[in-house]
């Protein structure tokens, strides 16, 4: 590769953690993007041009992210970027993309990312606030819980969720009996936090974090004698949760944007292709990355291979048929529904009780 001259190729880029604590997430995303590109290239590319992916590793660190961004921004052949995964990275890098009018589709959830100052930044996932509100309502109204404990990861994702969940849950009339924190990728032992939470007698635990820690939390809760329902966000929506957590994660409910059985046009084919290519279950991030790629490719098809063309396509797109549901952007934020999933019999299923 690399031999082809650039005029006959089209480049898009993806910036994600490829090494370090969160490398697994970047890995999933890149797999999905490559799947989408393979599909189009097998069909002969766009106007006979192959589409290629350039991967940048931000290591999940906001210090690295701007360097990656600058590299992409300064590279005229790159037309669009998918990423960054960490909100802190997206926040650190967005100014650079903006200055280069380079469209970016991110799945970071921090609400500030789409605060109106960076019109080239699109979010394909829902903000932390939206998720937290919905989950608070779900816990209070649908599950009838009144005393919640929160375990949140000490990054912007976790703290944002914690704050918003607290606000909404208390507004609804519930009580937050405990808020404990931990460090993603570093904390392995949760027994002090869980013991403390147990002392406060919550009737539900909200875990604002990712699947690895959630699996550990669920496993460690049992021996401590803490037996209350747990709910979480899209951050734990992954088959890996079950692999890691085993029996302990039975019954956990969480928000998600994607489930293989919630079928939209193309969902089934995507899931099958992903499985057969990687021998893995696609997760939320994979689905969103796949959809992001498809969106960009469609933009190129329709408006030509330019940054501005893609941007204007994204501004105007309405109900694009994504594998995780139809996509439209309002003020750069996607509009989509939240699914509630549940671990049942060692499988992720749609929960019996859904949000309205």
């Amino acid at each position: 590769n690399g031999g082809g001259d650039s005029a006959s190729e089209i480049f898009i880029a993806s910036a994600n953690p490829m090494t370090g604590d969160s490398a697994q997430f970047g890995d999933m995303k890149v797999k999905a993007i490559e799947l989408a590109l393979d599909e189009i290239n097998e069909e002969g590319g766009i106007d006979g041009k192959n589409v290629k992916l350039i991967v940048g590793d931000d290591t999940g660190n906001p210090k690295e992210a701007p360097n990656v961004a600058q590299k992409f921004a300064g590279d005229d052949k790159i037309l669009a970027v998918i990423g960054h995964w960490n909100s802190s990275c997206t926040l650190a890098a967005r100014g650079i993309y903006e200055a280069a009018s380079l469209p970016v589709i991110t799945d970071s959830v921090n609400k500030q990312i789409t605060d109106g100052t960076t019109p080239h930044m699109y979010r394909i996932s829902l903000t932390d606030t939206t998720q937290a509100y919905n989950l608070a309502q779900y816990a209070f109204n649908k599950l009838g819980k009144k005393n919640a404990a929160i375990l949140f990861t000490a990054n912007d994702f976790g703290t944002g969720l914690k704050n918003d969940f607290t606000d909404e849950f208390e507004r609804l009339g519930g009580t937050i009996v405990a808020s404990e924190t931990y460090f993603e990728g570093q904390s392995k032992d949760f027994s002090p936090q869980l013991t403390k939470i147990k002392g406060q007698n919550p009737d539900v635990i909200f875990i604002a974090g990712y699947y690895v820690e959630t699996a550990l939390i669920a496993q460690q809760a049992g021996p401590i004698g803490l037996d209350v329902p747990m709910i979480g966000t899209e951050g734990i929506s992954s088959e890996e949760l079950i692999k890691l957590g085993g029996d302990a994660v039975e019954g956990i409910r969480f928000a998600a944007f994607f489930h293989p059985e919630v079928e939209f046009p193309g969902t089934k084919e995507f899931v099958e292709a992903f499985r057969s290519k990687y021998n893995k279950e696609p997760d939320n991030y994979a689905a969103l990355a796949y959809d992001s790629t498809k969106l960009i490719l469609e933009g190129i098809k329709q408006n030509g291979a330019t940054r501005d063309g893609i941007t204007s396509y994204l501004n105007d797109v309405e109900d694009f048929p994504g594998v995780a549901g139809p996509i439209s952007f309002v003020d750069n934020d996607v509009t989509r529904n939240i699914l509630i999933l549940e671990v049942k019999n060692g499988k992720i299923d749609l929960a019996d009780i859904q949000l309205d």
Partner: protein
Amino acid sequence: MFMEQLSNGIALGSIYALTAIGFTMVYGIIRLINFAHGDLYMIGAFLTYTGLTLFNMPIVPSFLFGMVGAAAFGIAIAKFAYSPVFKAPRINLFLSAIGIAIFLENFAMLIWGPETQSFPSVINNKVYSFIGIRISSLQLIILGSTIVLVGILTYVVQYTKLGRAMRCVSQDMDVSKLMGINTDRIVYLTFALGSGLGAAAGTLVGMYYKAVYPMMGFVPGLKAFIAAVIGGIGSIPGAMLGGLIMGISESLGAAYISSGYRDAIAFIILIIILLLKPEGLLGKGIKEKI
């Protein structure tokens, strides 16, 4: 509640202690802060995991495979990365170790992938409880093996000829040679032992949390360092003491102060202890004769 937190602390502390033993032993003998210790711990856990899942071996051979494999890694590292630097200033050794640590983490990522893998349940982890204290069989195994290892290693280092030779090598390599000590062999042996112990710790912890992943050694490596220093770096019983102190203070700190400052508590204890006793709790401050 307090008793429960205390038992949480002891369980956690014995994990730190187990990790710190190998670390402190290597330090005691080569005066090397083996930053890669945590990563050898990770390699050991991954090798055991590979033995279990890929080669479908039973747990005991897998465990041995992990320990021996990590020991081999340890020897290779000692041979190629550390031995050539022994004569340079100490800080070079220090950085060489950091380089190796970075390498091992990323090497594991290349080989096993970045994601967390679930460690198969091989031991029926029963929970026993009495007077408000809960302890699981794996916690007992970890605590038990820590105590046994501390005993054995202390005996070897303090009272055997081999141990004396190890201590000599730590002080003056040239003169150790003049005593007829095969210093290379001592160094490799030390590393093999330290890495094997690290691997055992990594595997047990992997079993305990049912998870292995490339970055799993980073924090334990650092914690082992702190535990070793609290106890008096180079002192094997000190490593155990330091580990327990850290585990307990973290648990109680997380419970009664704030879980966000949990890791800071370990460091604050470290700093307080060092200011009161600069050579650590059981460390021997051998003053330089002027």
